[in-house]
Structure formats: C-alpha cells, structure tokens
C-alpha cells in the first residue's frame, strides 16, 4: 500500500473558504495579505497550499482558526466549517472549534511550546482539560503520542530547549493530532525534519487520516512532498490563488508562469550541476485576474501580456 493510493475523499466539503480577503492595517503601510481567495476541502481530502514566501498562506490558516489579531482585518468573504459560519462563532463555540474540530501546527512550531513546562506536562494538559482523562491515563497516552512521532517516550521529561528543532516540531504535531480533529492544518510542519523522519511522519498522518477520516490543509514549500501527499493543491502569489487542480496535474502540467518557475527552480539530485534561477529579477505579477478553467478541474489565472514576457524570461533561465 503506498501513500498515494489512499482514497480521494468525498466531495462533501468540510471546510469552505469563499472570497476571503484579509488586510493588515498599518500606520505607514497597509497590506492586502489575502485577496479574494476561495477553495474548499472535502472530507478526508489532503489539500496543499503552496506559494511565494510572504504570499499569505499563514494568514489564511490563521483566519480559519480565527486567530488573527490586530491589525489584521478580515475585509471580506466567508469561511464555513461543516456548514457553520466560522466567522460568526462565539468565544464559547471557538473554544471547542479550535483543537477539537480544527487543529493547527504553526509554522513557528519549534518556538510555540511553553518553555517552562516539560513536553509531557504539556501533552497531559491537553488530555486532562479537553478530553477529561485522568492524569495516569493522560500520561500513558502522551507516551504513545510521542512514539507515534518517533520520539522516545523517555523524552516526556524533557523541556523544549532540550530537544532539537525537529523533535520540537514532532512534539507539536503529536499535540495537534491528540484530540483527533476533523481538520488538521499543517503550516510547514517538516522544515526541521530529515527526509526519512519527514516521510515517516507524513505517512503516520496519512495513516491516521485514513483511520479517522480527517481532512488536511497542508502548507509547505516542499513541492515534491506536496505533490506526493496532496490530492488537490493551490498555488498562491501576492495574496491571490493563481492555479488550482489535482496535485499531479499541477506537477505534470503547470500552467501559470509562477507555478512553472516553482516547478523548475528545483535542483535535481542527479546529473550535472547547472545554474538555476528562481523568478528572474524584476518579474512581478500584478492585478492577477480570477481563475478560469483551462482544462477539466484545472483552474488558472489568465496571464496578461506583461507576464507572458516574464514567462519567456523564466524559460530561458538566465545564468547567475
């Protein structure tokens, strides 16, 4: 059984984001970090979100969790979870919604553990407060969770600073799946993991996902990992989605020049060492239009004349 043979999930959307617009209002400069973004994730589906650094991915994740703080403003659009309006939830509803319905592994995972509590105390805390288990039961489960992410349960006694970057990331992943949420948001969960552990953890998450049927919003810069694990994916640029389709289709037939740049800026593991360029200097896409269906299920933002000039520049791949 291989990872990509996992069933596709149903088309019943669990999470639906429509025309979401988020702004950061500043004294000197305001940014539209997310600009009319729409996507939906089906039950049991893994949906990947890729894109430029700073294009608004974490902002979307934080919006879904209702964790945006001033000066961030949701300027438009809607988010619904299982038919319920997330943006209208009360504090009381949110308490349940977060971690039990939707759990998130933050991009800052390495830094998001409480430095004065041991890993064990932090996991036990989740079980006693949210699931009502006894301390003893919680401790046993905490040990199991750590083993699940390949950390020796003896490390329950370690403080966060005593763990390596990757171990801290794994501990946080363990905490996120502790309460078996129906949607799991992973914001760059594996930046500090070697590929072996990374594959194992992602396989574990897939395994759990198959068992429990939860959906995943998976944010990563690792395009190979994304293509390998996601059913569908979207590529963002400057707050907009520029392309969305089945992950395999995006990989084999990227249509937007930015997606093409992402897919070709990838140093190979074999063959000679050839210079690569990312987006050539000065290439910027502006006023990105709405998506149109370029092929069945494959949506792309049409590229204006300007940006097609950029397209050729990318293809020529100027030397460093």
């Amino acid at each position, binding site marked *: *059984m*291989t*990872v990509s*043979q996992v069933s596709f999930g149903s088309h019943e959307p669990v999470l639906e984001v429509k025309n979401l617009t988020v702004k*950061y209002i*500043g004294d*000197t*400069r305001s940014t539209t970090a997310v600009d009319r973004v729409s996507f939906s994730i089906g039950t049991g589906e893994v949906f990947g979100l*890729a894109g*430029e*650094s*700073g294009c608004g*991915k*974490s902002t979307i994740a934080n919006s879904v969790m209702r964790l945006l703080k001033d000066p961030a403003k949701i300027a438009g659009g809607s988010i619904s979870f299982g038919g319920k309006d997330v943006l209208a939830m009360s504090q009381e509803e949110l308490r349940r919604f977060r971690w039990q319905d939707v759990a998130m592994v933050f*991009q*800052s995972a*390495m*830094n998001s553990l409480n430095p004065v509590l041991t890993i064990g105390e932090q996991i036990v805390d989740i079980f006693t407060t949210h699931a009502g288990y006894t301390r003893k039961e919680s401790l046993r489960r905490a040990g199991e969770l750590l083993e699940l992410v390949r950390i020796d349960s003896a490390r329950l*006694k370690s403080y966060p600073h005593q*763990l*390596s*970057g*990757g*171990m801290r990331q*794994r501990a946080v992943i363990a905490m996120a799946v502790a309460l078996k949420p129906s949607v799991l948001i992973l914001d*760059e969960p594996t*930046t*500090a*993991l*070697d*590929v*072996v*552990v*990374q*594959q*194992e953890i992602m*396989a574990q998450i*897939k*395994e759990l996902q198959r068992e429990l049927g939860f959906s995943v919003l998976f944010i990563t*810069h*690792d*395009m*190979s990992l994304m*293509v*390998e694990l996601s059913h569908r994916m979207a590529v963002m640029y400057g707050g907009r989605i520029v392309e969305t389709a089945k992950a*395999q289709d995006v*990989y084999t037939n990227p249509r937007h020049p930015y997606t093409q*740049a*992402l897919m070709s*800026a*990838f*140093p190979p*593991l074999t063959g*000679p*060492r*050839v*210079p690569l*360029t*990312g987006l050539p200097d000065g290439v910027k896409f502006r006023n990105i239009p709405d998506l149109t269906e370029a092929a069945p299920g494959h949506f792309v933002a049409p590229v204006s004349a300007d940006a097609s000039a950029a397209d050729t520049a990318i293809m020529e791949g100027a030397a*460093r």
Partner: protein
Amino acid sequence: MSHAVLSSQRPSADTEAPALEVRGLGKSFPIGGLFSRDSVRALHGVDLTIGRGEIVALVGESGSGKSTLARCVARLEKPSSGQILIDGVDVLKRDRFQASRAFRSQLQMVFQDPFGSLNPAHRVEHFLRRSLAIHRKGGNSETATQQRLGELMTTVGLQADMLNSYPHELSGGQRQRVAIARALAVEPQVILADEPTSMLDVSVRIGVLNLMRKLRDEQGISMLYITHDLASARYLADRTVVMFAGELVEEGESLDLLANPAHPYTQLLVSAVPDPARAGSYDPVRRAELRQAVMASTTCTFDGDPNQACSAEEPVRHRVGDPENSHWVRCHLYRPQPGAGGHALAAEPTDNTASA
C-alpha cells in the same frame, strides 16, 4: 567534478590554515531532573575541516547533533571535549570564557528557528544597524549606513520599507531572510547557517543559494550549510558531510557522495527524498523496516553483530571510489566492493582530506 557546469572557484590554499577546523569535538547534555545523572551524548569525536572559501553541507538525521555542532563552534555551547581552530588559532584557548567581538566578526551564525531568534521588541532596522555598528561595517556616515541597509535588504530579496517592520509582522520566510541579512552585515569570514532557507519557496531559495555562492566566489567566505534538503546541498556545497547519532559517518565531494552513498544511513536518506516523478513509490512499511535495520542497534551504532571486525571498537574510515573525490565512510557495515578501489584509511584520522 569534471561534469559540473558550475565551477568551484575556491582558491587553492594549501599553505594557509583552513578557515575552520574542528578536532575531536564532543558534547554531552545532562537530561532529566536536577539530580539525575542521565545524559545525552549529542556529539562524539567530530573532526571537520572547512577550507577558505569552501562551502560544506552538513546533513543528517533530526536530532543527530547538527545544531549542537554549530552552536559549539559559534561558542554558544561549551563543548565537553575537543578543539576549535579558526584561521589556525585555537579559539577555546584564546577566548577562554566567552566569544570575543573579534571572534564574532570572524564568524556569524544564522539560527535554525527564525521565530525564536529575532527579539520581538525591535524593528528589522535595529538588528541590521546593530550588527553594522558593533562590527564597524556601516561606513563613516549616516548616508553610508543607510545605503548599506538598503543593499542588505535587496541582497536577501526584501523591500527596503520592511526595515520598519517588527518580527511579528513578517512571514516565516521573510524572517529567515532578515536573519541572513544580519549575518551578512558583519562581513564575516565564516558563516554557520542552520537551515537558513527551510521556509523559503524554491524560487526565492535558489536566489539565496546563488547569493551564498556569489559571496564565496567574490569574498571567499567559508560556509557550513546545515540542511535537510539534499538537492540544495548538492547544488551549493563543494563537500557534504553526513551526521548520524552525533558522529560524522560519511563525507565526500557532494555530487559523488549523493551518487554513491556508502553508509547505510546515507543510502536511506538519499532513497527517502520525495520525488514527484516517482510519486506513489514510497512505501511506509518498507521504509520503516529499512530504518529499523539501520537504526536499531545494541552493540554498536549500526549492526549489532558482535562478531564483525569493527564492532567492538571505533569504526575506521574507508575510502570510497576515486581519491579525487575525498569520499570516505566510517561504518561497521561498510565493506568495499572488490576492485572498487576502496581501502581503509588511518584508524583515527584527524586529517579528513586524506588523499593518498
């Protein structure tokens, strides 16, 4: 290297001392409670040399000791044993208790966690200005400093108006670039970069890797590049070293090492690189078995077969393939293929460029 299109322009500096040399470095951490005697052996007998203008990639398992090595070299952690030589000077002897400013001007570190390494109370400008001021690299006028600040931001692909931003206003990748700019501001001779590009999209990442190469080519900066991205190690680094359980187990010219991994852990690592071209080929069950075989050990780091020659003692370094690639492996399980030109090097070499 004959096929490489990218030249490695590192100056041949046979007579000069290497930029950085680490000898027999060891580090143990106490774990558990205050009175517990348990400890974790994070590093053991690490020998590593980085020549002037050389880029060395350090890869290895999560938790194998990579950050600890970098933190010891940067004098943020006190090694339990061993020597650290910069430009041939033993810095642990020279600055006994803490790193001097001269040392910080020579060597800068980019930390693994961009969310923890920038003080939230300050704006981006503060970090860069401070580095410029302490190490007197800001030029002799405010105009010169401002210009330098602008240059640094452009260098890492950030807009100059972000100088006014606080860390919490930046995305993960933007913070990483600020951290890189802060190290560059000092114009050091050696940069230790701990996963500096892990949160950058591939397109920006290539830009940063090209920048690192350019700094090496133009200014002769030496680098230790810690990464989990084997493809980028191959792209950027002259040599790649592999760490496993606190020890260096294999080293070689990057292309050769990744094409002919000799250590079982390196083989496992290379085989696990996700590749969309073979999506679906990854089988978690089989991978878990392979990992088990490599990792599970009782008598020694690898096999657990007490009858094997090396098992009882420290494993020796074996040369792999053509001496030109300076490729060696240190493992209980490695057996040179007959006629493959490999043979055991010295049992306890300190010179890891050992070529016959």
